[in-house]
């Protein structure tokens, strides 16, 4: 078994089709992307004892929500901690470990539901599952960049698009399974966890065993590295333990953190903002949301759910679109667009709401969501451009702590600013305006951080001797690629 997982065993034979690697990466990312869809379980689990309605001893939805938060925190921590190990041992071993953690996390989650133990749920789906998220997320990054030196952005964009799309498959599947398994004495979550855990385990193993590394010195047929040097794309290599000492690492950390914080903030408030700002106008009725009847509120909430679904589509489309475009535009210019256009759109959204133009309001949020997804998908290629490809997976892993930080910063900013304003008597529909302006200010910080990114200083690059030693440790041979 260990031999099958070894890095030496997964070097591709001559004539290998590199287009086999992205679906392997997608199989893993589509599986772990269900992290975004875990909330589909919270409502049924909140009546796991009472079955039809919450009973004494049932978990609260807010208590269950911590599972997702733990998962995202451990995604960042495990990606940072195991990135170096991934580069040494190869993507297949990391993918298999991710399959055990994510599939196993669901199995432990099923046991937690059976025993009705919330701490076991946190341990299984939150901590162990979160480690699976981190390992799975970074597992294909450096492999894809090595296979697609001509289209780094597009290659990583395809995989990271899968992470955005995982909940689109997982959430409806979970609903189908819960309806299938539910009985008079069970809400069906335990059996659904076991089934989905098994599906994800098999899909992720298939993905991991599909990973192949290019042979030393491999280049796509008919392609040669550009002769005209681009100062923003290095041909040299920075060691992961040196990368985090560079200003470039922390500037890119800030770029990702600000883009994701603002995006998570918007995701949290887009649907309620649409409902509260437009109220009855969404269903051609007069009055604000609070003045509507219960039936009308349900209609408005349905439209809000449709808006959230539309945003998720633009989120995944943006991952592929922007990351692919960055291959032509350049990474720095792509983030320049994210922050400059993003600032305008964030600042314009309250005006579109006040003007009562639903199509403009919806269009603004859709474009914002493409740039949120695009920020995730373009960052691995940006890192490869700045630090080289040898340790890019590990460096990306460390950079993902910015995501964990943003996962706390974004929602906290949105919720506290809103509560503070409503506490001071600002009407709910208007309370969003200041929040959007503050999120736009985060983009200004990101804009300047991106503007300050310059090529990495000479002293941080590995010497030829160091590089040869690193390649020996990583069981690689041959020339730099």
């Amino acid at each position: 078994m260990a031999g099958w997982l070894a890095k030496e065993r997964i070097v591709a034979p001559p004539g290998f089709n590199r287009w086999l690697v992205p679906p392997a990466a997608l199989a893993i990312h589509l599986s772990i992307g269900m992290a975004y869809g875990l909330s589909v379980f919270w409502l049924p689990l909140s009546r796991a004892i009472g079955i039809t309605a919450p009973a004494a001893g049932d978990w609260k939805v807010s208590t269950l929500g911590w599972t997702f938060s733990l998962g995202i925190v451990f995604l960042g921590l495990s990606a940072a901690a195991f990135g170096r190990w991934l580069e040494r041992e190869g993507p297949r071993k990391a993918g298999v470990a991710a399959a055990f953690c994510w599939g196993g996390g669901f199995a432990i989650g099923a046991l937690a539901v059976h025993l009705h133990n919330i701490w076991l749920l946190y341990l299984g789906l939150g901590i162990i599952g979160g480690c699976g998220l981190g390992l799975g997320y970074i597992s294909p990054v450096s492999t894809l960049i090595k296979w697609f030196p001509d289209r780094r952005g597009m290659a990583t964009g395809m995989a990271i698009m899968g992470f955005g799309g995982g909940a689109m498959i997982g959430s409806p599947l979970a609903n189908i399974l819960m309806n299938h398994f539910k009985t008079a004495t069970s809400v069906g979550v335990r059996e659904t966890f076991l089934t989905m855990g098994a599906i994800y385990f098999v899909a992720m193993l298939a993905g991991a065993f599909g990973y192949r590394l290019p042979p030393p010195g491999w280049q796509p047929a008919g392609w040669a590295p550009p002769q005209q040097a681009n100062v923003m794309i290095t041909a040299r290599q920075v060691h992961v333990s040196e990368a985090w000492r560079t200003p470039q690492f922390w500037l890119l950390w800030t770029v990702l953190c600000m883009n994701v914080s603002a995006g998570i903030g918007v995701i949290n408030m887009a649907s309620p903002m649409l409902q509260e700002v437009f109220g009855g106008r969404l269903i051609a009725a007069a009055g604000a949301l609070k003045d509507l009847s219960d039936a009308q509120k349900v209609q408005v909430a349905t439209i809000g759910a449709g808006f959230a679904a539309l945003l998720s589509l633009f989120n995944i489309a943006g991952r592929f679109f922007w990351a692919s475009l960055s291959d032509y535009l350049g990474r720095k210019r792509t983030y320049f667009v994210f922050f400059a256009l993003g600032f305008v759109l964030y600042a314009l959204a309250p005006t579109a709401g006040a003007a009562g133009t639903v199509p403009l309001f919806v269009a603004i949020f859709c474009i914002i969501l493409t740039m949120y997804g695009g920020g995730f998908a373009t960052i691995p290629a940006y890192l490869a451009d700045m630090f080289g490809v040898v340790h890019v997976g590990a460096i990306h892993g460390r950079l993902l702590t910015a995501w964990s930080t943003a996962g706390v910063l974004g929602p906290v900013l949105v919720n506290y600013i809103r509560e503070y304003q409503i506490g001071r008597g600002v009407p709910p529909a208007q309370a969003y305006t200041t929040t959007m302006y503050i999120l736009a200010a985060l983009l200004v910080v990101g804009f300047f951080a991106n503007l300050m990114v310059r090529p990495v200083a000479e002293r941080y690059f590995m010497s030829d001797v160091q590089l040869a030693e690193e390649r020996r440790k990583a069981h690689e041979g041959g020339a730099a690629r």
Partner: protein
Amino acid sequence: MTRRTGWLVAALAWALVGIPLCWGVYKTLQTAVKLFR
């Protein structure tokens, strides 16, 4: 693996991930159209 077989395997691999993804997009679109009704 011949060149032709390589492309067939690649098409199969893409179908294995593409079909569930298309189903997920379709289900999401079913929800999203409620915004325009």
